[in-house]
């Protein structure tokens, strides 16, 4: 076995490959990771642009939005719907799960590629197709789908109600394709992490990032099935004229809500976990500390995963479910705060007696913890059935989930990108630009969404394209807060160019990173940066857990997994 592995790495062919083979038809896990990453970033630009357009409309109702024009009510709905769908399904999922899963799992497990490279390629291709279908849906007659990302029927299933018969169908098709892509992707994440770990790597030697991505994939697989079935039913309702969700023909619209949220709630942890994984890697590296209570973290993740299947109806408290059911879901929802709180405490405890360097990735990781706690605790207000009667579908909910999703999808992604950039591209990012970008993102972020909590507390509800029709909401100071949020968003978007500039500049002129720029421990730092096809010159063997920083027996403050002694 060992000799075969060495030979393999040596006789890797480095011949000329055509552009097509190299960038579009590659089976190399790192190239597929890049495909997912850049598709995700491109979609983030679209999703961010949509947010800009509808926030401009909210702050200055009826103006010509620069780069867009007038926003009609129908367009407003389509923009919000697709903003939400894109950010979750085409940004958070591909960047956190697919891009980093593909890049990190083989490297951190010490193998040369994913187990099924061709399935991996197919997964990306289906994902790309889904993104294309979604983008096409904006331009069909009637416009893009506008029935909210939750797509509650019968609005979404009957064209006469939504007035976007084609857009709604393409939306459902795109979402279903995206699910298939991630089910296929999951095959690789699971089998590679289970079967292809480097010799010596026991379960408790697996870095958190890998654990989290794998558990997230399992959660996804176990929760998405009913919604795929639901998507098929909805497609038939739309295109064949069945009545699964049409109450006038014996269907039940609330069924969709159950199918959607049975997936929807685990889904939020599907994206949360990878981000938590990156944060674990980063805070240990830059605090030079062993991860506090590694096993406890795993147990909390398992507990969260299991509980996450029991809370879905907290999104449906007031949707006409049996009111007695609400008690059960209140209790489970509140329970889930316990493992997540514990996880947060463990991460914070990791800093104890550390030696913390405030590099850009570390700043992102710390910001993740702080901002996510705000998002998490505001979820408690919503999980309590009584108060949720008031909060449901207000901007308080909106601010709650942006305080969770933004840290995950954007802060977490930036943490990951800045941390692994040297490994991905072989160059270091510029620290000064990185910090400008960090503060230019974090400060506006809070200025966008803190005001939205206040607006929600005062009864402002969601998905309304102009509040002028509501006397209680069309108040001066409320409008001022809306303007503040919008202006902060513009500031944040401007600062994103610093990131892109930093990215491009560092690719061209950045300092060479070397194999292990942070003196980190896990296996991805044992191979050249960027890793060649086949990754490791000699496939590594693992001798110890991943977070052995500042071990008292050692001169150096790190002790890589692959070093024999």
């Amino acid at each position, binding site marked *: 076995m060992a000799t075969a592995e060495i030979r393999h790495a040596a006789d890797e062919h480095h011949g000329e490959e055509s552009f097509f083979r190299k960038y579009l038809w590659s089976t190399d896990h790192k190239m597929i990771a890049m495909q997912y990453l850049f598709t995700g970033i491109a979609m983030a630009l679209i999703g961010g642009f949509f947010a800009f357009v509808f926030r401009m409309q909210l702050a200055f109702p009826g103006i010509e939005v620069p780069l867009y024009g007038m926003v009609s*009510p*129908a367009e407003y*709905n389509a923009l919000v719907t697709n903003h939400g769908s894109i950010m979750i399904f085409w940004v958070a999922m591909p960047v956190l799960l697919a891009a980093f899963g593909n890049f990190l799992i083989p490297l951190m497990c010490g193998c040369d590629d994913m187990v099924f490279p061709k399935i991996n390629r197919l997964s990306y291709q289906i994902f790309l197709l889904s993104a294309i279908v979604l983008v096409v849906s904006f331009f069909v007659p009637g416009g893009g789908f*506008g029935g*909210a990302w*939750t797509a*509650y029927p*019968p*609005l979404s299933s009957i064209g006469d*109600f939504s007035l976007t018969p084609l857009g709604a169908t393409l939306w459902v098709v795109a979402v279903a394709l995206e699910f298939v892509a991630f089910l296929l992707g999951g095959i690789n994440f699971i089998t590679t992490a289970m079967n292809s770990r480097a010799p010596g790597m026991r379960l408790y030697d697996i870095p958190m990032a890998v654990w989290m991505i794998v558990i997230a994939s399992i959660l996804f697989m176990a929760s998405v099935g009913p919604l795929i079935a639901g998507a098929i039913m909805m497609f038939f309702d739309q295109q064949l004229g069945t009545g699964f969700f049409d*109450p006038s023909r014996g269907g039940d*619209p609330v069924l969709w809500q159950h199918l959607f949220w049975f997936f929807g709630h685990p889904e939020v942890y599907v994206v949360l976990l990878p981000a938590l994984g990156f944060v674990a890697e980063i805070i240990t590296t830059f605090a*030079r*500390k062993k991860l*506090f209570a590694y096993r406890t973290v795993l147990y909390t993740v398992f507990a969260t995963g299991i509980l996450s299947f029991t809370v879905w109806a907290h999104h449906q408290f007031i*949707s*006409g479910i049996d*009111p007695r059911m*609400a*008690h059960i879901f209140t209790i489970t929802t*509140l329970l889930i*705060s*316990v493992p997540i*709180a*514990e996880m947060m*405490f*463990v991460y*914070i*405890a990791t*800093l*104890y*007696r*550390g*030696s*913390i*360097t*405030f590099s850009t990735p570390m700043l992102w990781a*710390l910001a993740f913890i*702080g901002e996510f*706690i705000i998002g998490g605790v505001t979820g*408690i*207000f919503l999980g*309590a*059935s*009584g*108060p949720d*009667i*008031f909060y449901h*579908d*207000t901007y308080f909910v909106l601010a709650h989930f942006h305080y969770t999703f933004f840290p995950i999808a954007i802060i977490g992604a930036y943490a990951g990108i800045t941390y692994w950039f040297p490994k991905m591209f072989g160059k270091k990012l510029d620290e000064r630009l990185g910090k400008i970008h960090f503060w230019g993102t974090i400060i506006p972020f809070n200025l966008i969404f803190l005001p939205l909590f206040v607006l929600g*507390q005062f*009864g402002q*509800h969601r998905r309304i394209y102009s509040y002028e*029709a*509501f*006397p*209680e*909401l069309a108040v001066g100071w409320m409008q001022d807060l809306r303007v503040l949020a919008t202006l902060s968003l513009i500031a944040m978007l401007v600062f994103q160019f610093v990131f892109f500039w930093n990215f491009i500049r560092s690719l061209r002129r950045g300092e060479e990173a070397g194999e292990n720029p942070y003196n980190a421990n896990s296996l991805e730092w044992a191979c050249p940066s960027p890793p060649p096809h086949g990754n490791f010159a000699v496939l590594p063997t693992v001798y110890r857990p991943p977070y052995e920083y*500042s071990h008292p027996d050692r001169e150096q*403050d790190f002790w890589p997994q692959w070093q024999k002694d």
Partner: protein
Amino acid sequence: MEYLPVVSTYAQSIDDAILLIAVLVGFWTVLTFTLFFWLIFRYRARPGQRAGYVTGEERQPKRFITIAHMLVLVCDVFIVIAAIRVWVDVKQTLPTAPETQTVRVIGQQWAWSFVHPGPDGVLDTADDIKSVDELHIEVGRPYIYELVSRDVLHDFSVPAFRLKQDAIPGRIIQGWFEATDTGSFDIQCAEMCGIGHGLMPGRLVIETPEQHAAWMARQGQAAGRALLASGRASG
């Protein structure tokens, strides 16, 4: 910048539950943030100082986590109790007092219409008063609402009452409220219902019994005339 008016019998109890959660959760947030920032500050890298080696599996340091998580569980219990008490009041009980009246609330793309029981106090009789976008009720009288939808989901939301309930086509959903003050307040549609979802404002007018009776009298005449003119009796 006055806080939302409190105009239903249960609005205050919802606000109280929110306050309780805010205190408990706020305590933890402040605590974790203080600890978090203190650790960041205290253990910033300093030349010549090396990080400690703490696995977190030792009893002593781990105890802090375990105790904290038990305490969070205790807080959760209080929150659940508070939440459920309010919930049972708002969603699981219906008023039985004899003066209770029933109104029908109808959501459709994209307007609210309301059926008031009229002077006889009974719904689905000849003197029912129908109105569009305006719901008239009496202060101090319990009402049961029957929420229906003609097409897609809507949501009957009255922030001043802290009340919200989805309307589902094909079902009749019952709930209740009792106003504690007069005035006129927003009714919002809080469930995405299509292009006009943002244009579905309603108005809740809470009147004294005398005002309400006067309003009914005016409406009764108007409705009678309209019925004759259109020549059809709609359901």
